[in-house]
């Protein structure tokens, strides 16, 4: 034990030695700044930014290059939450959930509190996850190798069931929205057969419907339409209530939620495909289930901001574990970082820790330093952000529309993506008028293609035998969890009984 701790300290010391050099500190700061900037701009995600910055890293030494690119990555995630809270625009999948209660808090005049809680929850999650990587690293990574297709199916089913819990309106409508999301996600070229599905000859649909245009339309544009028809247009989005900072009560409810979110984030973030999206949805659902009064969720519950923010940060960082230790990038952004490493002749994989200890530990430590920098940079900015949304709305909304358009266009440099966003905006308006919440649809959209692919592969491997989902211990136990959760949500008897238990 002592030996282990000693080794850990030695490793971390080596990491600090690398990360704290003036050049690397500067690169980390630069990355975080750039990341925050692009994160705040809706639509320009970390993937595009990292890609654009890649050529600069030709001229940097590899550790510094990776530190900067990693800084862009978590900086943009951080900035993404800011836009989600202020104007209800989820720039990436992991901030969808933050919109729900974060924006509700902002509308209620507590934008400052929401931003601060998000920042501190992220910092906590980042710290814990960094430590977890340092201690567990390679050992944790091998967990991902236990997972085969049926197990992924089970993880995703569990995620989708969790999305039903997330709804604060009708459960049946939430289910229908998930199925609709899955269906939209299946549009495009089928991975297994190479056939086109529902593309109607439109080439821009061959690769499927992108997440960002749909998310920005469903959330952002429909929000603008509803705002314009309901509120006094000359005022700002929200007036500031008494205080900028979170209250003591806020902290009291946010702390346990942050801890739970962090743990969920680490566990789910290691799995390929998981990234930071499933953790944030799962953490939100968990908090809502645990809450004494679930009806607060969606109306500006502090836990509803703290838990998913902690989870998506933990998940995003935990994604580094399989990338560094197995050389298997769990999501697109990690694939980009692998690309950046390869440009410098570094092959990520099992040998990286032994062969390039300074790179591995330097990156681990700089992740934590970057996190700290982000909080230090952003806390003073909160006042500015809050003032921004007090601007007269008739000046603010055309700017939001233009930023959305440019962001969506830049994803594939394609105007059709912008058109898709407009369609999603109208759809979001109609659906919201009919009492259907957009969040479950988005989760379905993300998970649909992965679910189908793994589902078909499982059955093709098993020769069409559905029992494969019950024969594998991992998938069987995850599916059992999903069924239990579904029973809790759907059976009114159980629900009522549970409420009675609470009241006793």
């Amino acid at each position, binding site marked *: 034990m002592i030996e282990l701790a000693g080794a850990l300290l030695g490793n971390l010391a080596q990491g600090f030695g690398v990360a704290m050099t003036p050049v690397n500190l500067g690169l980390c700061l630069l990355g975080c700044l750039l990341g925050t900037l692009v994160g705040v*701009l809706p639509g320009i995600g970390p993937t595009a930014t990292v890609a654009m910055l890649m050529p600069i890293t030709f001229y940097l030494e590899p550790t510094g290059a990776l530190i900067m690119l990693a800084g862009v990555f978590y900086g943009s995630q951080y900035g993404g939450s800011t836009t989600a809270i202020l104007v209800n625009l989820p720039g990436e999948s992991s901030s969808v959930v933050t919109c729900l209660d974060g924006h509700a808090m902002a509308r209620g005049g507590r934008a400052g509190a929401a931003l601060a809680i998000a920042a501190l929850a992220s910092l906590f999650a980042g710290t814990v996850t960094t430590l977890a990587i340092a201690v567990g690293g390679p050992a944790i990574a091998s967990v991902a190798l236990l997972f085969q297709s049926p197990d992924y199916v089970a993880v995703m089913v569990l995620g989708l069931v969790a999305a039903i819990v997330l709804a604060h309106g009708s459960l*049946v*409508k939430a289910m*229908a929205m998930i199925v*609709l999301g899955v269906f939209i996600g299946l549009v495009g070229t089928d991975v297994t057969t190479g056939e086109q599905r529902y593309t109607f000859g439109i080439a821009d649909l061959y690769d499927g419907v992108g997440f960002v245009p749909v998310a920005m339309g469903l959330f952002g544009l429909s929000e603008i*339409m509803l705002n314009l*028809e309901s509120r006094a247009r000359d005022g700002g989005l929200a007036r500031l209530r008494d205080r900028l900072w979170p209250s003591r009560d806020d902290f009291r409810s946010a702390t346990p939620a942050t801890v739970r979110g962090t743990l969920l984030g680490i566990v789910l973030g290691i799995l390929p495909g998981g990234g930071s999206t499933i953790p944030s949805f799962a953490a939100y659902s968990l908090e809502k289930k645990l809450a004494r009064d679930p009806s607060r969720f969606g109306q500006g519950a502090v836990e509803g901001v703290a838990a998913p923010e902690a989870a998506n940060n933990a998940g995003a960082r935990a994604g580094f574990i399989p990338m560094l230790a197995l050389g298997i990038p769990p999501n697109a952004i990690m694939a980009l970082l692998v690309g950046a490493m390869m440009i410098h002749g570094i092959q990520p994989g099992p040998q990286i820790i032994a062969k390039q200890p300074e790179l591995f530990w330097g990156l681990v430590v700089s992740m934590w330093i970057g996190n700290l920098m982000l909080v230090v940079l952003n806390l003073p900015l909160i006042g500015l952000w809050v003032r921004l949304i007090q601007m007269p709305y008739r000046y603010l909304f*055309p700017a939001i529309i233009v930023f959305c358009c440019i962001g969506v266009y830049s994803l594939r440099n394609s105007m059709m993506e912008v058109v898709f966003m407009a369609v999603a*905006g109208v759809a979001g308006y109609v659906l919201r*008028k009919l009492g259907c919440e957009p969040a479950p649809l988005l989760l379905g959209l993300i998970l649909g293609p992965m679910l189908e692919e793994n589902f078909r592969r499982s059955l093709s491997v098993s020769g069409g035998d559905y029992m494969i989902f019950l024969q594998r211990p991992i998938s069987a136990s995850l599916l059992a969890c999903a069924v239990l959760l579904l029973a809790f949500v759907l059976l009114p008897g159980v629900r009522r009984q549970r409420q009675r238990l609470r009241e006793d």
Partner: protein
Amino acid sequence: MPRWFNQDTLAGALFLAIGAGGLVAGRSLNVGTADAMGEGYVPLAACWLMVGLGVLIAAGGLRASAPAVEPGRLRPLLAVTAAVLAFAFTLEPLGVVVAIFASALCAARAVPGVALRSVLLPAIVLSLAVLAIFVWGLGLPLHALPRLPG
């Protein structure tokens, strides 16, 4: 407004229509078997599910307590959509500055009684900001002004 005209019946009908539409549009897709699923297996299953859930939701709309549809206004819906489409269709041929002005002019129609003057200044500021951030700063491959033929 008749009583059946409420959020649930309409939402149910919508899902029913999407599901049915998906079944019709996907009728040529190959379903395959469980061990070698065709491209239509999962999407068509999703469509049937939507049909079923649509019926269930619509049935819920027959309750007396079903929530009514809040009346909407067409103007913001059309103006915001037009602003996005205007941007989409002017950006490539005419450049980002024209696209911003086109979009801002459409967006201004969302709010009745806005003078042209009060659109121009914000549009200029916005154009400069966009040029500075996206074109010069981030180096996105956008062109600022219309491309001349030749």
